[in-house]
Structure formats: structure tokens, C-alpha cells
């Protein structure tokens, strides 16, 4: 299609500047995949889709959200009740987080039962496990941000869990909270992780994940 003589003027214009046709062909018309790829192979792509939705809705939420114990709850209330379509953005972000975990889990189970992690795709699996862990931590840190009774005590129970680990347990609890109890320090800490550090890490690991799957191709059906 892209190589036909009827190429658009725009494509020709781009072609002269950075030889886009070859790349397009390589990734579309000339890219071959194993026969009988089924619907379950969509789960990874859908995980990426929901991640992008989370980033976009997250940026909109950040425009009104205030990460302090005094203002957090009220700012979410304001988003839901006053900001045009704020309720929609907030709901999509919160339900999207749970959906993302379910999709990533489903993708993992698919890879597991298809034995798709074998050589030469070991690193695909390992980067995927990191992506799964990062997804969980991102959800956990985001859950505290509305500063509701549920999120406050959820964060308390969650940050308490590494406490039973030997030697470093107490230190880990203290570091994750920034104080004895979950407090305003915890909130800003979780906020910074949730909006900058973790999404950046997910993007990096996902990029690695995608480059590798492009290099090896997907594992074929049985």
C-alpha cells in the first residue's frame, strides 16, 4: 500500500526528509506474524492502551489536585462536582487503575500457559514482571491521594506489610511513610512517586519490553 505509485503528497514529502516509507512498510505491510494469532494476543496492547488512558486522565486530574492533607479531599470533591467532566475523568482514572491490573495479570497468565517466555524471550518475561510490580505500586500510591478514610487506612496497612521483614523491615516502613504514621509527608512522597517516578519507570520498562518483542517476534501458537 505505501509503496504504490499513488502515494500521497504528504507521504512523499515526509519520505524526502526522513525515509519514512521503509519504516512504515517494515512495521505494517511487510511485517509478518505467525498464523492463527488469536484474540488473547491483544492483552499486551490493551495494557498499553489503558496505561496511556491513565497518563492522559492523570494529567487532567493533576491540574486541579492539591497534595496536602488539608486540601486533597476537597480538591477531588471539587473535580467531581464542579469541574466540567471532572467526574468522568476521575472515574475513568480510578476504574482504569483496577482495569490495568486485571489486564496485566491476564496478559501474564496468557504468556504463562502459552509457554511464551522460553528462550530467547527470558528478558521479555523479566521486564514484564517488573512492569507488573510497578503497576501495583503505582495503584497503591495513587490510592492514598484522595485522602479518604479508606485510602488513609489502606496506605497504613500497606506500608505496614514490609514491617515483619528482618533487619530492614522497620526501616522500610519508616522510609515509605516518611514519618511514624501516614501523614502529609507520606502524601507528598506518594504523589511524587505516583505522577513522576513510577510512570517514567513504567515507560522505560515498557519501551524495553516492546523493543524486545519487535526483535524476536511474538511466540507462535503451539
Amino acid at each position, binding site marked *: 500500500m505505501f509503496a504504490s505509485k499513488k502515494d500521497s503528497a504528504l507521504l512523499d514529502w515526509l519520505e524526502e526528509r526522513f525515509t519514512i516509507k521503509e519504516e512504515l512498510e517494515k512495521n505494517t505491510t511487510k511485517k509478518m506474524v505467525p498464523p492463527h494469532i488469536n484474540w488473547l494476543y491483544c492483552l499486551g*496492547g490493551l495494557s498499553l492502551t489503558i496505561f496511556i488512558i491513565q497518563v492522559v486522565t492523570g494529567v487532567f486530574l493533576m491540574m486541579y489536585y492539591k497534595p496536602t492533607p488539608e486540601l486533597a479531599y476537597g480538591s477531588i470533591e471539587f473535580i467531581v462536582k464542579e469541574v466540567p467532566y471532572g467526574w468522568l475523568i476521575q472515574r475513568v482514572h480510578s476504574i482504569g487503575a483496577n482495569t490495568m491490573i486485571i489486564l496485566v495479570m491476564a496478559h501474564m497468565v496468557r504468556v504463562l500457559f502459552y509457554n511464551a517466555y522460553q528462550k530467547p524471550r527470558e528478558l521479555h518475561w*523479566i521486564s514484564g514482571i517488573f512492569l507488573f510490580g510497578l503497576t501495583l505500586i503505582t495503584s497503591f500510591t495513587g490510592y492514598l491521594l484522595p485522602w*479518604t478514610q479508606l485510602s488513609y487506612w489502606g496506605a497504613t496497612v500497606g506500608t505496614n506489610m514490609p514491617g*515483619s521483614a528482618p533487619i530492614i523491615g522497620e526501616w522500610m516502613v519508616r522510609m515509605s511513610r516518611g514519618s511514624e504514621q501516614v501523614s502529609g509527608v507520606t502524601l507528598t512522597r506518594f504523589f511524587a512517586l505516583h505522577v513522576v517516578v513510577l510512570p517514567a519507570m513504567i515507560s522505560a520498562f515498557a519501551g524495553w519490553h516492546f523493543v524486545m518483542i519487535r526483535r524476536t517476534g511474538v511466540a507462535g*501458537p503451539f
Partner: protein
Amino acid sequence: MAVDNNSKSTDTNHEEPFYPHELLKFGVAFFVFLAVLFTLTIFLPHGIHEPADPMNTPAHIKPEWYFLAPYQMLKIVPNELAGMAVQGILGLAILFLPFWEKSKRRHPAKRPIFTPVCIVVISAFIALTLWGKYS
């Protein structure tokens, strides 16, 4: 038909063009997914959330659903340290799975040990989650 999973080459075993059919398939999945997400968004009950009160501990505090299984496991194992150790080993085993589970067989029915183990582990995760939710 049979695709050699160990092949290093990218396209030699791949026989169907990605575009347009496979891309279209993903497009359909994409829109079905969006429909489900927005249906959930609009119809799931909203729930009433009270603002956080650090002075007032609620009666039953639990983590979110995705942490319920490890949480419940730590609760039922009498020794906290042992519980943590089991979880740590399980986590490492899953992380390094491709390095200790090297079967060439692909079909689940042809993996008589691995497939049942997987099903047991996944069932245990679901059971612990439900147990944590309703206990």
C-alpha cells in the same frame, strides 16, 4: 504450521502480514475494551467516601483487592517471618521463571507438571483474595 519457539530469527516462521488483518483485530479489541471501560465508569456505584481521620481507626481495615492475597497469607501463617520468606521465594521464583522452567513443550496439555502447578497457584491467589475479602 508449527512455529519453532527457539528460533532467533524474526520473520522466517511468520507467515501472515500484520497489516491489515491483525491490526484490525487489535482495533476491534481496542473499541470493545473502551466500551467496557466506559460502561463500568458510568454504571458502577460511586460509593460515599469520608475524608481521612487519623484519630479514628475503622473496624475492618484491609488493603486494596490486589494486595489481599499476600495480606491474607501473612495473616494465616503463624510465623510472620516465615510468611515473608515464602512470599520472597515465590516472588523470585516467578521473576526468574524462564531460567528454571525450560520445557520445550508449548501446549498446556503437554506439560503435565507445570500446568497443574500453575492452576493451583492461580487458584490459591484467587482463594486467598476471596478469603481476605470476606473474612
